[in-house]
């Protein structure tokens, strides 16, 4: 399924290549190339031409090697294996900067390169092929550093980038004779014919599968999606690719498509959740499906861009785009709220809701890639589910500048202690499994993973409030994102049962008439905290929230009597203590005969937190109303 979808996408790319991107044909792959060696027709090295192109990376412009289509590259680990006409300086020129144990380290590799290339090029009868052969036979790596042209570029060459050949300024790989020789050599490879499990045709089977680059955490040279490198993976005495017969055509095609999706060339960047890289594509040449999907899942990224840097002129465009994305999202959200079908025409002209859309989550595991999830639905279904997710998360904000749409990454980040150094790393590590499960629940419209709920409550239990450098208290313990998640979690959990026991509290803001015990207790706690503050002032070392919240939330009976006794002192001391006292009384009256349960279960604890949050938000609201 996965490979089939990727292969289809490859065909789409091949027929309709995206702007500025060369999609490799079968037998070729896209690789970064640093330098071209310009030869004369007699095989003399005339010049070395740098092929770097400036690329915008964030605010900086960096010079990156040019990406070109070159003959498909071999897989290397420690073995010596030469590529055809495109390789690094060790192979092409026998140069190495490393102090290798083996004195012939570079020499051996150059000889392997020479042997393979000369052998292949002899089958091509063209001036370009003759020139490269002449060069390779004349060239001596031992005296290379004395060569004036090489000496000039020595430092750059040793950096390890790929080199290609030009003959009189023309790329040797564009030579039709050379291409034909290469393509012929490939079909003659020693492989068996089997029924391909993607196309169903009897075809030559790929022995090794292409490297997939760009999944963070995997090896930089690339990792394999399909590989059989240990005994335990093989069946019936079959070796490597024969264990899963996939034709060479398909293997090279899906590799190109997946590498493109993961590369910087793809305008719709992969989304990284923990260690999972999420790529997504539509079964259509139209790129707008994927960009719309990206905006859906990264609303904050757009918002941040919007807030950042206004002085620079070129940022204006970006901002405009971000604004549009935000507006689009808002419009779609609204249409969902009003129960209308999503009008994707509004999102961006005419996208077809029925177009198949694919989402693939890949995670690294040493030299292999593991599939975290693979989802396929019509585009409209995904769009609706994502909006449902955002709608479930809606809750009153603490501050007006908080994002309306909370990105999945933010929620995962909330599960890691704010005190940890290298937080991103920690998020990646601890949520490697949960990230996939969470993403899937969003995209499938199912309840969120229960572990995530436990983790959030756990953080609420353990975190204290944090004071930032400029002495402002940043709410960490119970904040906008955490409460929003708790609310959404409980909504989704009961959605499929039809009736939600907590229906009345899973709302945007305070529900004053709801008599659920945990909810009222949560509100009561917020009131008590406020009275304490009013009585003692802002400079309390440890508020009741710092000291009692966890216990009040889990075991109310052990804490609330103490707090209520203390509250008598606070109300008598505070300026408007009487009002608060009345408020406490009203809340106590809402409780049943046995007001303080011995313990609350996890769901009730969530409701407690919501009650607390809603009540606090309500205080804030009345205050700001008064100010107006």
């Amino acid at each position, binding site marked *: *399924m996965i490979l089939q979808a990727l292969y289809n996408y490859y065909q789409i790319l091949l027929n309709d290549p995206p702007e500025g991107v060369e999609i490799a044909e079968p037998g070729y792959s896209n690789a970064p190339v640093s330098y071209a060696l310009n030869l004369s027709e007699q095989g003399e090295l005339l010049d070395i031409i740098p092929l770097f192109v400036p690329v915008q990376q964030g605010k900086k412009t960096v010079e990156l090697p040019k990406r070109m289509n070159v003959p498909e590259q071999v897989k290397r680990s420690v073995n010596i294996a030469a590529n055809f006409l495109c390789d690094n300086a060790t192979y092409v020129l026998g140069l190495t900067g490393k102090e290798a144990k083996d004195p012939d380290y570079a020499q051996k590799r150059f000889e392997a390169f020479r042997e393979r290339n000369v052998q292949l090029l002899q089958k091509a009868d063209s001036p370009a092929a003759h020139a490269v052969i002449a060069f390779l036979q004349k060239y001596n790596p031992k005296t290379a550093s004395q060569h004036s042209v090489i000496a000039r570029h020595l430092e750059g060459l040793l950096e390890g980038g790929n080199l290609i050949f030009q003959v009189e300024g023309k790329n040797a790989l564009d030579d039709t004779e050379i291409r034909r020789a290469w393509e012929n050599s490939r079909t003659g490879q020693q492989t068996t014919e089997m*029924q391909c499990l*993607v196309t*169903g045709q009897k075809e030559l089977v790929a022995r090794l599968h292409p490297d997939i680059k760009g999944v963070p955490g995997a090896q930089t040279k690339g990792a394999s999606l399909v590989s059989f490198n*240990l*005994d335990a993976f093989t069946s019936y005495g079959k070796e490597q690719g024969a264990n899963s017969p996939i034709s060479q055509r398909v293997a090279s095609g899906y590799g190109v498509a997946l590498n493109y999706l993961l590369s910087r060339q793809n305008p719709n960047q992969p989304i990284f959740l923990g260690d999972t890289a999420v790529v997504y594509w539509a079964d259509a040449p139209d790129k707008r499906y994927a960009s719309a999907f990206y905006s859906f899942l990264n609303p904050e990224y757009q918002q941040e861009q919007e807030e950042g840097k206004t002085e620079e002129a070129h940022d204006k465009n970006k901002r405009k785009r971000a604004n549009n994305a935000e507006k689009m999202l808002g419009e779609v959200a609204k249409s969902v709220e009003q129960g209308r079908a999503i009008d994707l025409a509004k999102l961006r002209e005419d996208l077809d809701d029925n177009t198949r859309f694919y989402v693939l989550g890949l995670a690294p595991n040493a030299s292999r*890639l*593991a599939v975290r999830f693979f989802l396929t639905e019509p585009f409209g279904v995904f769009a609706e589910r994502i909006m449902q997710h955002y709608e479930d998360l809606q809750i009153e904000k603490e501050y007006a500048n908080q994002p309306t749409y909370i990105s999945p990454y933010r929620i995962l980040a909330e599960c890691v202690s704010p005190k940890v150094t290298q937080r991103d790393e920690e998020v990646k590590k601890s949520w490697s499994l949960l990230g996939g499960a969470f993403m899937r629940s969003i995209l499938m419209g199912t309840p969120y993973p229960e572990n995530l709920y436990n983790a959030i409550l756990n953080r609420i239990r353990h975190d204290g409030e944090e004071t930032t450098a400029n002495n402002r208290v940043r709410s960490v313990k119970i904040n906008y994102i955490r409460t929003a998640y708790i609310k959404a979690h409980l909504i989704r959990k009961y959605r499929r049962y039809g009736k939600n026991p907590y229906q009345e509290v899973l709302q945007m803001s305070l529900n004053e008439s709801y008599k659920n015990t945990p909810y009222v207790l949560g509100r009561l706690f917020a009131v008590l905290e406020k009275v304490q503050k009013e009585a003692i002032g802002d400079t309390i070392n440890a508020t009741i929230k710092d000291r009692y919240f966890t216990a009040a939330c889990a075991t109310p009976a052990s804490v609330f009597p103490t707090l209520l006794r203390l509250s008598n002192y606070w109300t008598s001391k505070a300026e408007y203590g009487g009002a608060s006292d009345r408020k406490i009384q009203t809340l106590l009256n809402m409780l049943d005969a046995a007001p303080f349960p011995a313990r609350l279960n996890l769901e009730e604890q969530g409701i407690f937190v919501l009650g607390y949050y809603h009540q606090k938000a309500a205080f804030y609201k009345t205050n700001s109303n008064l100010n107006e």
Partner: protein
Amino acid sequence: MGYGITIRVQGDYALFTRPEMKVERVSYDVITPSAARGIIEAVYWKPAIRWVIEKIHVLKEIQFTNIRRNEVSDKASVDNALQVMKGANKPLYIAATEARQQRAAMVLKDVDYVIEAHFELTEKAGPDDTKEKHYNMVLRRLRNGQHFHAPCLGTREFPARVMLIEDKGGIPTSPLTGKRDLGYMLYDLDFSNPRDIQPMFFRAVMEDGEITVPKPEEVRR
């Protein structure tokens, strides 16, 4: 062919590994014919008969989940075993603590299938092997819940609950509607040449939760 059986197979998890992703395992969307055959063979099999799967009904939505499991990197070596048999003094085991590897798997969750199958007599059938005999034996074993080894859903760690559906009218209707192309799927392995065992694939198409499995002759090429 009159002697077909219909069984219902349920389980909390299932893993019908795709051959192309059998390292970091990814399951097929539904049970494969060979896995279904494996379940029936766990209940009843004799050299005289060969099970053929006719139809697979999918009774629950297809749901996946991720788990990580400890697996090992090695297989028990045949050469090694042969040498030990001939008297070589070698260790004959895999030390799980040394060969352990953790791997991710994408497995199916909460599965429920109905499998329609029949058996054919093979060339190994003797004069006593009548269809009626084997048919009644499998029925008896299914009714009593007997099996040779625990039937499982793809891999051993996911046991299957197997029960007999006596009346074909009693097959529950599937909540799945519409046509869905599941791509090429493993049909079974072709053991006809024991020196070169070849996998066979078929294009699985699910219509209203029903997959019609082609006959072996149609798949073999």
